[in-house]
Structures are given as C-alpha cells and as structure tokens.
C-alpha cells in the first residue's frame, strides 16, 4: 500500500476515534448543566445523584477527547502538509479561533467544574459548568466551519495554487455550514440521550430503582424522542443542500448511475463500479425523485456525469457512501421507534419507568451506542462522498499528502490502531463498571485531607 492510502486510513482512524468523544462531551456538558440547575431549583437529591454519576462519564470522555484531539492537530503537519500550504490562509485563522476561544475555555474551567464543587461558591461552579458546555459547542462550531468550507468553499481566490481569503463572512457562513452544524449538534444530543438511556437501562435491569436512575431514564428518553424527528427533518434539508452543491455525493448516496427521472429509493443494492450498475436492487419506485425533487418525475443527477472524457473518475467510491448513508438513516429510524414507544409507555397512565416492559430495557442497552454508529456512518458519508477532493473543486487529496515513506506510516498506523482498540475496550468496560458500582450504592466517603503517608486507604476522584 502506498503512503496516500495509508495516510488516509490513518487520518480516518484517528478522527473516527476522536469524534466518538466530542460527540458525547458536547451534549453531555449541557445535560450536566441541566441536572445541576434542576438540583439548584428543587433541592431533590435525585438530580444530584444523576449529576454525580454522569460527571464521571463526562470526565472520562473529556480526557479521551483531549488526547485524541491533540493527535488530530499534529496530523495536518505530519500527513497532509499540502493542505495547509494550499489553504492555510483560510484554515489557519479558523483553527486558531477554535484554540483560542474554545479549547482554553473548556480546559481551564473543566478543572473547576470537576473538582471545584466544594471549593468555590455554587454560582461559580454552575458558571464553570456552563462555560465548559459552551466551550465544547464553540469548538464544534469552528471545526465544522472549516469542514463545511472544505465541502462548499467560497469567499476566496486562488493565486499560484494558494488560497487567499477575500470575504470572511462568506467563508464562515458558507452554504453547508448551517445544515452541517445543526445536524452535528443534534447528533451529539442524540448520542448522549441514548447513552444515558442505555446505561440507565442497564442499571434498571440490575435492580436499581433509585431516584437518580429514574430521573435519567426519563431525561434520556424524552430528550431522544424530542430530538430525533428534528434530526430526520434536518437530515432531509441537509441532503437537499448537498444536492445543490455536491450532486455527485447525492448520486453516490442514492446509487444512481444515470441522470434520469422517476428514480427509485433503493433499500438494498450492491453497487458495482466495474460494471457501473447496481446488482440485486430492491427499491421503492419514484421515491428518491420525490424526496429530492418533490415530484415523481424529478430528474436526479447520476454518477456517469462525473466521469471525464478520458475516463478519469471524478465521483466518490460508490459502495461505502451508499452503505454508510443507509446505516445512518436506519439507525435514525431505530432511534425514532425506540424513543417514541418508550415515551408513550411512560406517559400512558403516568406510569413512568415502570411502564416500560423489561424486554424493552434489554433493547435499550445495545442502543447505548447507536449514536456512535449513526455519527460515524454520517461522517463517512460526508467525507468519503467528497473524494477525490479534499477541498471540493480546489485541492485533491492526492495533492496534499506528505512524502513520508510508506513503511513509516504503516508503523504508526498499527501503533495507533492497537492503542485505540485497547482504549475503546477500557472505556466501554469502565462505563459498565461504573454503572454496576452505582447500583451497589456509591456512598459519599468521609472527607480527608491528603497528606503524604497519612492517606493510604482512600482512592481519590473516582
């Protein structure tokens, strides 16, 4: 394998690992703020219990997000020097603003948020929690601005192969930003909602009937039920936006080879790029045309339009885009089904968590990670769908790669993969371990000052 493909795999692996954790922390910060505010308002200990459990998950996820993010920021230099050389004048300021307005904010106030509960006045602790949540959302905003600009670039001019900014407003508020940012923030909210539902269901199945667990089951289910229809609607709008700016991506998502009318919505197919056709198609007639053009005979662009005269393929690889898109949408509908049924059962005769049958709790546990699946599938659709471009129409991926020897990239890739596999296993097992420990009663321990030897038995900051 050559350096290009290895570097792509390495970048893909690193960012996939990275995004798992921001997806959790972005929304979980706000959920913790919600728990805190509910506690302040009601004085009910169940909110405090919920806060205490989920702040641990937050701290752990945050650490994972930070260390993998640091890896990301070096990747541009080690593997994609051509990227910054060509579009550094645009990417640079955006990344700088992310670091300055977001990373420091969240990193500094994280300390106070996690360990300052009894050291600072209540309002300062609440404010710190708010600032951390705000910081993670800001960092998502800036990075998504950059990413969206790479999909729908504008507000710049090219001089000798280098991009120069001409209009920062156009760069920041580029056409796909509103859709991508909203879709991603909702994705984060959903990921957290289902993680909360899943882990709380696990505790419920182990016999935990505490106020804290009830509160989180309700919070998670209602949050999920509320967000998922909005997400599906946003996804649809996002697709229409993509149809306008990156038709080749939509063609790959639909598995549509020829530009034509009355295109079916394919539920299953095996796209074959050699033969340039699908095998084993199963679809709903006219449906893709209706979704994308709002009429049955709407004309949908096809992949064959994106092959040059001399046979060079300028559209993305079809099968991965086609399939990851379906995985995302299917997960979305599974979320809809689960959260609405659970919400209905809880509301019916006001039975709360008791209204949900045990079988359904069993289904909720694996759904804990459904947000991760949909988010990754979504990003694969988006990013692979941009190939062969790195910055749509401006810079190809091939042009940006570093000329580091392939064996070197292969070595680091293997090292990263090994460590990610290890950490992911540790992370997931610790989540369930914490849940199990919470069921056994996680009583507050007496406070002791730490001083050298004197402090031998206690375990701090679990």
């Amino acid at each position: 394998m050559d350096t290009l493909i290895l570097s792509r795999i390495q970048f893909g692996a690193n960012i996939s690992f990275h995004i798992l954790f921001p997806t959790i922390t972005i929304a979980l910060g706000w959920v913790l703020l919600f728990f805190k505010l509910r506690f302040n308002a009601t004085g009910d200990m169940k909110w405090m219990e919920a806060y205490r459990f989920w702040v641990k998950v937050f701290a752990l996820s945050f650490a994972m997000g930070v260390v993998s993010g640091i890896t990301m920021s070096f990747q541009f230099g080690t593997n994609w020097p051509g990227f910054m050389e060509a579009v550094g004048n645009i990417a640079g300021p955006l990344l700088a603003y992310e670091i300055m307005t977001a990373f420091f904010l969240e990193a500094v106030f994280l300390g106070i948020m996690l360990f300052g509960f009894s050291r600072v006045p209540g309002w300062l602790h609440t404010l710190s929690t708010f600032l951390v949540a705000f910081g993670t959302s800001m960092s998502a905003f800036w990075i998504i601005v950059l990413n969206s600009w790479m999909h729908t670039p504008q507000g710049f001019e090219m001089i000798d192969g280098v991009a120069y900014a001409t209009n920062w407003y156009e760069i920041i508020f580029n056409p796909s930003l509103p859709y991508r940012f909203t879709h991603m923030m909702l994705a984060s909210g959903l990921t957290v909602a289902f993680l909360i539902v899943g882990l709380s269901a696990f505790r419920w199945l182990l016999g935990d009937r505490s106020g804290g667990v009830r509160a989180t089951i309700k919070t998670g289910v209602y949050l999920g039920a509320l967000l998922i229809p909005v997400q599906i609607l946003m996804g649809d709008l996002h697709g229409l936006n993509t149809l306008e700016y990156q038709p080749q991506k939509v063609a790959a998502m639909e598995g549509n080879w020829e530009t034509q009318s009355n295109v079916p919505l394919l539920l299953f197919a095996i796209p074959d790029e050699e033969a340039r056709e699908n095998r084993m198609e199963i679809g709903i007639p006219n449906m893709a045309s209706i979704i994308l053009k709002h009429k049955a005979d709407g004309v949908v662009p096809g992949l064959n339009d994106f092959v040059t005269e001399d046979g060079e393929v300028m559209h993305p690889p079809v099968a991965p885009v086609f399939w990851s898109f379906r995985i995302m949408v299917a997960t979305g509908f599974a979320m809809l089904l689960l959260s609405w049924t659970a919400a209905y059962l809880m509301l019916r005769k006001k039975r709360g968590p008791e209204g949900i049958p045990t079988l359904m709790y069993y289904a909720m546990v694996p759904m804990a990670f459904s947000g991760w699946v949909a988010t990754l599938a979504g990003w694969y659709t988006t990013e692979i769908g941009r190939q062969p471009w790195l910055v749509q129409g401006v810079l190809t991926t091939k042009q940006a790669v570093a000329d580091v020897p392939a064996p070197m990239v292969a070595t680091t890739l293997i090292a990263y993969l090994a460590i990610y596999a290890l950490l992911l296993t540790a992370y997931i097992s610790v989540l369930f371990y914490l849940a199990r420990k919470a069921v056994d009663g996680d009583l507050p321990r007496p406070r002791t000052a730490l001083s050298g030897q004197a402090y031998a038995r206690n375990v701090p900051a679990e």
Partner: protein
Amino acid sequence: MELFGDPAQWLPFTFAALMGVSILVYVVLDGFDLGVGILFPFASDAEKDVMVASIGPFWDANETWLVLAIGLLLVAFPAAHGAILTSLYLPVAIMLIGLILRGVAFEFRVKAPTPHKATWNWAFFAGSLMTSLSQGFMLGKYLMGLESTLGTWIFAMITAVFLTVAYSFIGACWLILKTEEGLQRKSVAWAKGGIWGLVLGLGLVSMATPLVSTRIFDKWFSFPEMLYLAPLPMLSGLIVLLMWRSLQSLPKPDDRGARTPFLYAIALFVLAFGGLAYSFYPYVVPEKLTIYEAASAPESLFIILVGTVFVLPMIAGYTALAYTVFKGKAVELRYD
C-alpha cells in the same frame, strides 16, 4: 495595518514571538506535570495519589499550550510546519502515543476496577516518559538543523535524556510546593539529584549549538553581540547557586520557602529558552527557512492577531483564577 510599517515584517515577527511564548509556557507548565509522572516509580502508592491530585485540575489546560504552539506554527508558518513535522514524523508519533497514555491514565487509574490501578499507574509513568524523551529528541534534532546523521541521532538521544531530567526536576520543585511531610522531603531529595543533570544538560546544549552552525557561532562569539548574551550564562549560574542553597534548607518550619525552588526553576527554563530563541532567530526551520519566508498571508495573520489581542488576556485571567482556586497543598480530588 500600515500604521506599524510593513506588515510583512512585523506580523511574522509578532507571530514568532507568540509562538515562542506558548512553547515556553508549555514547557514550564506541562514540564512540571510530565515531571511528576516521570517521578512516579519512586513514590509509594499513597504518594502517587497525592502527586496526581497536585496536577489533576491543571494538566489539561497545560497541554492546551502545546496545541496553541503547534497551531500557531501551523497557521502562521504553514511551509515550516510541514517541513518540521514530516521530518520529525516518528518522534511526533511517539510523543502523541505518550500523551494519549498518560492523559487517559488520569481518569482510568481511579475509575477502572481497583486491581487495574497499578497498570494505569504504569501507563501514566510510561506515557510521561515517552512524551518527554521524544520532546527532548525533537529538540536535539531541531538544534542540529533537522539533519539525519549518526552524530545528530546521538546528540538527540542525549538531549532526550536531559530534557527528561529537566522535567522531572521542575516536577520535583512543584511537588515541594504542593505537598507536605514525607513526600515533600522526598521531593527535595529528587530536586537535589535533578539539578546536576540540568546543569550538565544546559552546558552541553550551550556547547554544541555554536559548533553546529557557524552563524550561531558568530552570533555568540563576536563583539559586541557577546555582551548581549553574557548575562544569560551568568544569571543561570547565579540561579543554580541560589537554588542549591534553598534546597539545602528545605523543608522549613511553617513551610516557608516551599515556593522558591519552583520559581527558580521557571527562571532557569526562561533563560535557557531565551538563549535558544536568540540563537535561532530569524530562522524557523534552522538554516533553511526564515520566519519571513514561511509566513502566511498578512491578511490572514492580521485576522488572527485581532482575536489574540482580545483573547490572550482572558485566557491569562481565567488561568490565574484556576490556580487561585486550587492553590495550597494538594488535597483529595473529588467531584462533590
């Protein structure tokens, strides 16, 4: 922009200065928490908890300075960024893996089931060690103009060891400030050991640097430039002496003077860094690319600068707040 003269001149300089400051702040701040990790094997299990408690609220923000430094390199000098990072490909990867290991170990060592704690303690140590060794290695390679020969490799191996010693030294000074009783006495002993490594390392780097490059040699040993540089080694010598005296007398009753070694250590780091910055200016890739050649478009730099002017004081402000909230001796870290 014209107000200050040619922006193609002062903007790159400003950004080089900003980048220098963030590297320096990084080396001091993450230096002490990496150092604490490197000292891990010498501490008992109970002491390890105190050591982590002393850096727990800070390490994340400390590492953010690295992100800022690399970010500034990336945004202000994109051409240099690629050149430097691709030639340091392997040490960078090792550093990143080190940072990953130690960063997650903070959390896992207390959240994973108790029997696993020893493993995560080990990961915390190994990660800290990998990070500081590879940073020292990169420093050595950079000093040697990023050339790859047997000689530069050996030199880089040596700087790797010395930077690690330097970090564990400043880590020990931090622990003197943040701990009490037995652990504090131990930290004093660690600092006493570390200081000699530090002196040796500083001396070695100072001797090697002018030998590698005639440009730097001229900058150091010609008149009148020599006069500008002379205060650096003299001040450093003085500080080492003062520090040694202060370490001899610690710990004192009422914990007086516990802060002194840490402040001296910062001063030493600043001086050493100042010397390097003086020698390498105006190059960002040694002997190949100056900051003026490598800089991004002035318009883009200006946009960042505007933000920086507003944001840096705020960062400084809330960093100070965090250090105030967690001042005093390390106490058990808890979420409630």
